[in-house]
């Protein structure tokens, strides 16, 4: 708790700073695209959100596996706090993608492999959160959700590699560590800053969520103790 309390404001600060720098760079400094003009600028939001939508799921899977094997309560809460952020990123990726798709592809939505996989990922996040809410007992809910998360990792993997499996409309990944493959530096560098911003934002909200959950659990335990005392 103390360490996370120390990191939290800095994570928020870092996220804000990176967003400010990244957005300014992406929207004003970076040159417009040769073919797409200013429309291409939406990738600075779209790509980090899409990458994080899968990245957050990966964190969730790791936390769930940890929870299932070592039964550490905080990893349950970590997985639980990941879900809303991940769902939000998935939604942002879908919405920005469809705003970009309308002028570029001529349609708000196409049934392309990656788009479909991303939409299914969104349903998965929603199902995960619904399962947490549906079961009253917190320990049972945590374990059931962890099992679901592990089962769903298959679907998240499909989403990640769908572009390589099925070569449909959506272009392959535009970022990679391999120098020869990625887009030009004028786009690459602000994109990296935006990726950093999204990561910092995720970290800040994850910490916030876990702290909230831990406090909620303490309150519940205290209430239980009070009720027992009153009964005795």
């Amino acid at each position: 708790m103390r360490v996370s309390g120390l990191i939290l404001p800095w994570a928020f600060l870092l996220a804000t700073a990176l967003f400010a720098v990244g957005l300014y760079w992406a929207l004003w400094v970076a040159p417009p695209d040769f073919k797409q003009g200013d429309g291409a600028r939406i990738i600075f939001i779209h790509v980090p959100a899409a990458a994080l939508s899968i990245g957050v799921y990966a964190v969730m899977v790791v936390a769930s596996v940890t929870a299932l094997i070592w039964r550490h309560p905080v990893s349950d809460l970590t997985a639980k706090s990941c879900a809303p952020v991940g769902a939000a990123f998935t939604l942002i990726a879908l919405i920005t993608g469809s705003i970009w798709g309308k002028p570029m592809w001529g349609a708000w939505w196409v049934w392309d492999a990656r788009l479909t996989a991303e939409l299914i990922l969104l349903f998965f996040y929603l199902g995960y959160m619904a399962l947490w809410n549906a079961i009253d007992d917190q320990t049972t809910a945590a374990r059931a959700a962890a099992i679901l998360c592990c089962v769903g990792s298959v679907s998240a993997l499909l989403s990640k590699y769908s572009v390589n499996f099925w070569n449909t409309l959506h272009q392959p990944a535009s970022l990679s560590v391999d120098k020869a493959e990625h887009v030009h530096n004028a786009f690459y560098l602000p994109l990296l800053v935006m990726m950093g911003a999204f990561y910092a934002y995720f970290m800040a909200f994850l910490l916030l969520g876990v702290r909230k959950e831990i406090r909620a659990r303490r309150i519940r335990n205290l209430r239980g103790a009070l009720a027992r005392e009153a009964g005795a």
Partner: protein
Amino acid sequence: MRRALGALLRRDLALALRSGGGAALGVAFYLIFVTLAPLGIGPDPAALARVAPGLVWLGALLAALLTLERMFQPDVEDGTLDHLALAPAPLEATAFVKAFAHWLTTGAPFLLVAPLAGLLLRLPAEAAPTLILSMLAGGPALSFIGSIGAALTAGLKRGGLLTSLLVLPLYVPTLIFGALAVEAAVLGTNPWPMLAIGAAISLGSMALAPVAAAAALRLNLS
């Protein structure tokens, strides 16, 4: 252990066949779904034949989904699950047998009914054998993947809608390859790759889903 599992399979089959809400209802639902489809789309044979491969599979998927809820829930409610957990067979094997019984009672009848549905939807007759094969290859995946969702929501009072939300995303590959196989037969191309992938999904889910389902069932043991 083999005798225990055999007894469980016979019990589940008998329950499904003799009590209402078992196999017959799934088939009836499927036929009504197929009857309603032309009313929504219009009776134009060309338009129907175009969407028939998807519809015959979509109907099977929905029928499987509707019957999932009863896979584990009655056993959790009346305490049978606690006894099954005490039985010599591991819970994973129990989950496998129950999912298999679900396929025998809801999936297997579709092997007979699906060609009839195809006929109603103006699916070309040449595609009927492939349709049956695709149901045989991909159908078990519906029951076994579904057993995970059924096990996760077994302890809940109104788990039906939640089960759908949990299971439907996992059904996507099965649906895609099942429908693609039938469509390949309609178009006269080779359906075997799709059938093979459908069978692979079924076999994979047979191997893995009982483990997840058993883990979920243990949450309901008192």
